Structures are given as structure tokens and as C-alpha cells.
């Protein structure tokens, strides 16, 4: 008797909806709130996409979607155009190239992989800013934003689990 292969779950929009959600989250966290001198963290939400898209399934659409996301970040944050597109694409490229080594491993391995890729993205942004503005960005601020972005790893893991076994032919 031939066992019938289970039909994959239909998940609409594995690229478009997460992208819109990350941009919306970015705008929400731009709200000027300050309590006792502390302000809201400003993580790079699209870093979750750069990691999860590469893990779920490498796609030709992915890099261009990341470029568009990065451009939106630059326009919203007032950064030089192309800065975050470049940083996210460096992380995505690294994830695609090293995908075969890490896919299917446990949470610890995935989290280390995410940490390394986030470091690559921030190093790219740091060097680009330094070359462009002729000023080294303040390291504690960079580390603070890096930590806030690393804290998004559970979101990336959840997104991978959500889409990994699903039918993801549509964007």
C-alpha cells in the first residue's frame, strides 16, 4: 500500500506579509516615548526576514524584496539610501551561502547563525557609515541596537516554523 504524501499547508504571502509587518513594527517603534530617560529600543525588524527567508527557501524574489525593505528603512529613518539594503543583503547572502551547513540543526545552532549574520549586517552598516560620514558611529549605541535586533530571534524562529513545511509558491 502506498502511503499518500500529506498535502502541504497553504500559507499565503511568505514574503509580502512578513515584509509589511516588519515595516509596520518599525514605524510603531518610532513613536517618541521616553520614560525616566529611557527610550524605546530601535531593532532592525527586517533582519528577521533576511534570516528566515534564506532558511525557509532561497528565492530570487528575496534579495529584491530585502533591497526594497532596506530602502524603506533608509527613507523612514533618514539614513543614506542603500545603507540598510546593503546591510540586509550581506546577511541574506551569507545565509544563502552557508544554508547547507546549518539547515535542520537545533535552536542553539540557529541562534548562533542568526547572531553571526546580524553581526555581518551591522559591520557592513558601521563601515559604510564610517566611510561616508568620516565619523565612527558611537559603539555603545551600535551595541544597543544590535542587542535589540538579536532579541528578535524568537520571531525569526517562529516564522521559519510557520512557513517551513508549507506551500510557499505564492509571494
Amino acid at each position, binding site marked *: 500500500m502506498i502511503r499518500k504524501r500529506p498535502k502541504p499547508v497553504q500559507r499565503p504571502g511568505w514574503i509580502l506579509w512578513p515584509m509589511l509587518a516588519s515595516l509596520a513594527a518599525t514605524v510603531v517603534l518610532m513613536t517618541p*516615548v521616553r520614560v525616566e530617560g529611557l527610550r524605546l529600543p530601535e531593532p532592525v525588524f527586517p533582519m528577521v526576514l533576511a534570516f528566515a527567508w534564506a532558511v525557509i527557501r532561497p528565492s530570487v524574489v528575496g534579495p529584491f524584496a530585502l533591497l526594497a525593505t532596506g530602502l524603506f528603512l533608509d527613507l523612514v529613518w533618514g539614513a543614506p539610501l542603500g545603507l540598510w539594503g546593503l546591510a540586509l543583503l550581506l546577511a541574506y547572502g551569507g545565509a544563502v551561502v552557508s544554508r547547507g551547513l546549518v539547515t535542520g540543526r537545533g535552536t542553539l545552532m540557529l541562534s548562533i547563525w542568526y547572531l553571526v549574520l546580524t553581526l555581518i549586517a551591522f559591520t557592513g552598516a558601521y563601515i559604510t557609515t564610517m566611510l561616508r560620514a568620516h565619523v565612527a558611529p558611537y559603539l555603545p549605541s551600535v551595541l544597543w541596537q544590535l542587542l535589540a535586533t538579536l532579541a528578535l530571534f524568537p520571531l525569526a524562529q517562529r516564522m521559519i516554523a510557520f512557513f517551513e513545511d508549507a506551500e510557499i509558491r505564492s509571494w
Partner: protein
Amino acid sequence: MAFRDGPFQDLKLPLTLAVVAATVVAILAALVLLVADRRAALAVSGFSSARNAVARGLAPAGEVLEAPVRWAGDGIEAIGGYFFAVSENRRLKARIRDLETWRDEAVALRNVNERYEALLKLKTDPPAPFVAARSVLDVRGPFANARVLDAGAAAGVQVGDPVMSENGLVGRIVGVVPHASRVLMLTDVESRTPVLVDRTNARALLTGDGGPNPRLEYIRGQDPVKEGDVLLTSGDGGVFPRGLPVGVVAKDLRGAWRARLYSDLTPIDYVRILLFQDFAASVDPAALSATAVPPLTAAEEADRALALAKATARPPKPSSPAAQTPPKAAPQSTPAPTPAPSAAVNSLAAPTP
């Protein structure tokens, strides 16, 4: 429609290779954009219209997001005001007593200052009008520090206008749409502000680096600064008016001088946008760099006429070829008839009425 169902359905490529190629192309596109974008050029940036469009779209969203925060803050302040009214009253009375002393001193100093200005015919900056605005969005990362305000070109705001909170300078306007504007904060990595040390009048450049306390660079003079010195805008370059309060000098762990900003003392919610006309924008640079020979005085004019008369009265020597050439000194001493540039220079030197 899925990508693979389209016209490329028969195209056979290793997926990873295709994705890497697409990533490289996207990276190249990002690099081209980075090179093409000249954010520092402010108004002449080729991408400023895109930034302005985003600011226009996000300002209403920011107002909606910011409203609950503001209401909560107002509510907490109202409750605090109710419960701590007595102690607040006592504190304010003590402050009034303190400020009255300062007021008397300020009145006396203003009187002396006005007399000095009149005696010296000193040209001072006229007071700049301002527009009040509210900060609706806040970018505070290490690579960009900016804010979106809810006042724009409709209120007379222009690119380059300085922005102040109730405590001190915040930054300057770098993008304007009819009902919103974007402020480049003093802490942004691309912010450069000429400042002076109030105690020594030493000049420095306040350079943002994405941290809360911008650096002081290019400090001139011997021992020009010490911890706790007050920093003001110097007005050099004409971008900011002179004398706006910026902060106090502090030393970081590595021994470098930094500024603890006054504007960082309280949350930046309501701000003033000074409608300050950049000095460089009001002056024609071509007129400034044009050189005009000053007109001759009466004595010089008489000397010149005498020299010309002598030259014409001298009998020519037919044997000498040099005598056949016209005198060279006379045309050089003739003033160039260029009234427009000299008028522009004169009008600059004239005192403000």
C-alpha cells in the same frame, strides 16, 4: 501568480546559484544608490523628494501613534500636579526669588550692552521669529538620528532652520513638506555644528556620532576648554545664529571632549523652529568675491591729472622706439567702472538700521 508558473517556467538554473546572482545584483544596486545619494547636500539631494514624500505619509501615522503617549503623559502630569501642588508651589516660589536676582542683573547688563552696541555701531542679529511644532516620530539609532515634526512649509519652515527645545538647540531642518518637516539631530553622524566656548570664546565643531553626547572637534587655542564650560552656537558659516545654547562640555572615558546637550535634559516633544534666514542664502557669492578698485580721492585725482599733463607736455624723442609706445601706468590707475559689486560690499558693511 508564482514566479515559476510564469514565462520562466522552463528555465533550468541551480536555485542557489540564481539566488546568489540575484543577491549580488541587489547589492550592486544598493551600492549605486549609496554613491548617488548625497544626503549632506541637504536641499540639493536628488532623493530629497522621496524622503519628503515618506515624511508626508508618515507624519499623520506618527500623530496617531504619538497621541496616546501624549495623553498618558498629560494625565500623569495632572495627577502629579494635584498631589504635589504644595511642594511644587514652594519650589516655584524659591525659584522666583532666585530668578528675580538674575532678572535685575540682566536688565542692568542689557542696558550697558545696548549702549555699547550703539557706541560701536555693532551689527547684531535681529531676533528670529519662530514656529511651534510637535515631534511625532523619532529615529534614534546609531546610524541616523532624526525627528519628524508636524509643522512644514505651510507654516513658513524652510530647509536649514534651527530647531530648539525649551532647553537648547536640537538640530536643523533637512526636509520640508507642506505640513511636516524632518530634523537632523545634533547627534546624527552627519551633523556638524560650529560652536564656541562661552568662557574663552574658543571655536570648535560639534560632530554627531550617533551617541547621546556629540564630540567636540577642531578645538582651537591653548587650553581653551574645561569640564563644565557652556557651549553656544558660534554663528560661523551663517547656518545658525550666534548664541543659541547647546550644552556643557564633558570628558569621556578616553579623554576626548564631548557635549552634554541641554536638549537632552527633558523629552523633546514640543519644539520651536526658528525661521532664521541662513546668511549665505541672503548674499550673492559672486558679488562677494568680485573685486572692485576703490574710487580715487580728490588728492589722488589731482595727482593723476598732473601726471597725465606732464606726460602729454613732454616732447617726443623720434630716435627712441620706447617713446612711441603709450604710457603704461595711466590705464592701470584708472578705476574700473563696476558700481554693482562695490555697492554690494558697501551695503554689507553698513550698520543695520
